[in-house]
């Protein structure tokens, strides 16, 4: 190991390389730091799973919306004013008594930004990407979700062409809840399919 380190050309830490790239691109007039700030701010504060949760809660409240959502995810999501890059071809898959859906991107990290934001670290990890397709029931159990054996598990591989969002089942005991309260039950993981919504005790 020591020899390899001694012989290898030193590589600057990632943070330094990123800073150097930004300085270069700004100097060349390709980008401005203000534009980068604006993109980062949107993804840190505005775009995130709260958008997807609104979609799910509306679908639970409104059967007509639910039907439109399952028929044309992109258009129905746009009805709520949500859309943009990486959300152009949305397909919504519905959990039922018989089927549990879960989403993965086996090749990289395709993910529906407008409804879920930036993917979590584990979604981008090699073990999740490779194992979810082969042994979904085991991986889900390790992540804390025991899917009843009566349910089929369908694994959807996100790609450049289609992004998936899981529509979870509405938990029992939520009949009296308003849409905002329903949305609060819907986490990012529920919409990837590695968890299901539960009513807090």
């Amino acid at each position, binding site marked *: 190991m020591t020899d390899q380190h001694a012989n290898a050309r030193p590589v600057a830490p990632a943070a330094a390389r990123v800073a150097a790239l930004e300085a270069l*691109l700004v100097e060349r007039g390709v980008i401005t730091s203000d534009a980068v700030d604006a993109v980062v701010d949107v993804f840190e504060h505005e775009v995130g799973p709260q958008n997807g949760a609104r979609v799910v809660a509306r679908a639970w409240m409104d059967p007509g919306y639910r039907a439109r959502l399952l028929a044309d995810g992109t258009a129905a999501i746009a009805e709520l004013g949500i859309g943009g890059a990486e959300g152009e071809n949305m397909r919504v898959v519905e959990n039922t008594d018989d089927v549990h859906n879960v989403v993965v991107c086996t090749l990289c*990290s395709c993910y529906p930004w407008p409804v879920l934001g930036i993917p979590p670290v584990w979604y981008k990890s090699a073990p999740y990407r490779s194992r979810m397709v082969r042994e979904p029931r085991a991986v889900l159990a390790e992540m804390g979700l025991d899917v009843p054996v009566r349910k089929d598990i369908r694994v959807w591989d996100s790609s450049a062409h289609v992004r998936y969002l899981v529509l979870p089942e509405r938990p029992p005991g939520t009949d009296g809840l308003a849409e905002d309260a329903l949305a609060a039950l819907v986490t990012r993981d529920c919409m990837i399919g590695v968890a299901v919504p539960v009513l807090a005790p």
Partner: protein
Amino acid sequence: MSGPEHLPFDEPWQARLFGMAVTTCRAAGWEWDEMRDRLKGAIADAPGRPYYESVLAAFERLLADKGVALPA
């Protein structure tokens, strides 16, 4: 939106890199697919490498392929 599980980036440079890649593709008129294709390649080349380091390698490759000279 609250709680650490919603924070999309572990370190500031990751946010900077992501924002820079998105901004550069928009400004230059490059399809995000061009970045994505290189990210797939970077992940396949080094499956154990941390994700954002693969993003960085992919972005550097994209710039090089587009003829943007990088600092040594």
